[in-house]
């Protein structure tokens, strides 16, 4: 398997070099570039075409949230995970809305970071536990209308609804496959169809949409 090619974007030199050193100690990951702000991030991303970008939120010149939006428009296949000290709800939801696949806080142990990045290959969306809790708290405060629920349900097949229910609980593709007695590849196909039909970019957005629109029961919150 080819190493996961990672671009690091953070304005603090020592932090960025430290993460680069940690990642470089792994055989299955490699740092292909670094950038100190959002403007440089776009330029280096286009040059190096990484698989994944680890992006800070607060940076000079252009911040991480705006940069995510630009990168997802110009390089839609690149995955972006925020790696930040900011546990602000607004930053989390804006990052996800702009297309970030995950949101991690800088209080992680390296082993947790590696595990989260490994999950990217499996189609998972890495979120620090405290941020996942914030998402669920936000979802529980939303009350969808009946007509909205019916319209969205009509778009999804019964199997797709089952897969979506599992996604809302935080299940991985492998766990969904085991629960529904289907293959992981089939789960990925269903997930792709769900994302297309709901007009969202990743499973986090799908989960938020599903609970907000009342497609699934938000009281089943899994491990988050």
């Amino acid at each position, binding site marked *: 398997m080819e190493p996961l090619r990672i671009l690091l974007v953070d*304005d*603090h*030199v*020592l*932090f960025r*070099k*430290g*993460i680069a*050193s*940690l990642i470089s*100690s792994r055989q299955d990951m490699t740092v292909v570039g670094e950038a100190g702000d959002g403007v440089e991030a776009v330029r280096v991303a286009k040059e190096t075409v990484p698989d994944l970008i680890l992006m800070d939120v607060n940076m000079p010149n252009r911040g991480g949230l705006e940069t995510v939006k630009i990168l997802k428009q110009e390089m839609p296949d690149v995955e972006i995970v925020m*790696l930040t*000290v900011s546990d602000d709800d607004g930053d989390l939801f804006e990052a996800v809305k702009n297309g970030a696949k995950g949101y991690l806080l*800088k*209080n*992680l*142990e*390296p082993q947790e*970071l590696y595990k989260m990045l490994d999950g990217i290959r499996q189609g998972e969306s890495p979120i620090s536990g405290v941020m996942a809790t914030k998402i669920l708290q936000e979802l529980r405060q939303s009350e969808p209308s009946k007509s909205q629920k019916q319209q969205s349900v009509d778009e999804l097949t019964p199997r797709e609804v089952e897969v979506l229910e599992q996604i809302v609980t935080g299940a991985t593709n492998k766990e969904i496959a085991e629960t529904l007695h289907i293959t992981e590849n089939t789960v990925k196909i269903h997930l792709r169809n769900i994302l297309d039909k709901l007009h969202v970019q990743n499973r986090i957005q799908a989960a938020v949409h599903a609970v907000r629109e009342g497609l699934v029961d938000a009281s089943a919150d899994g491990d988050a």
Partner: protein
Amino acid sequence: MTTTRIFVISEQLMFARGLESLLKQNTQLRLIGHETDVGVAGKRMKELQPDVVIVDSSRSSWDEDLELVQLLRARPNLKVIDVSLQNNNLYIYRATQKVVESVDDLIQAIG
């Protein structure tokens, strides 16, 4: 050849781990401990007796000078380097200030 023993005080665990990974590349430097709280750090530093302490004061509500003065009173020969993660400056306490552009800048400050 003596090894410089370094203690890190930072609320960001990943910063401390990254710093440890960087310092490992220099055989004359060794990170001997990390704490997120200055009070706890002070006690551990009395036990461990580091040569250098690297402090990240950026996310804390410290009265920076008071905390650092207390550290210095406890160990007058201790070198304190503030690597404030809000900018790319190194503050070598009460001595000099320089902009960090690479890891070598930190290594030179420690040395």
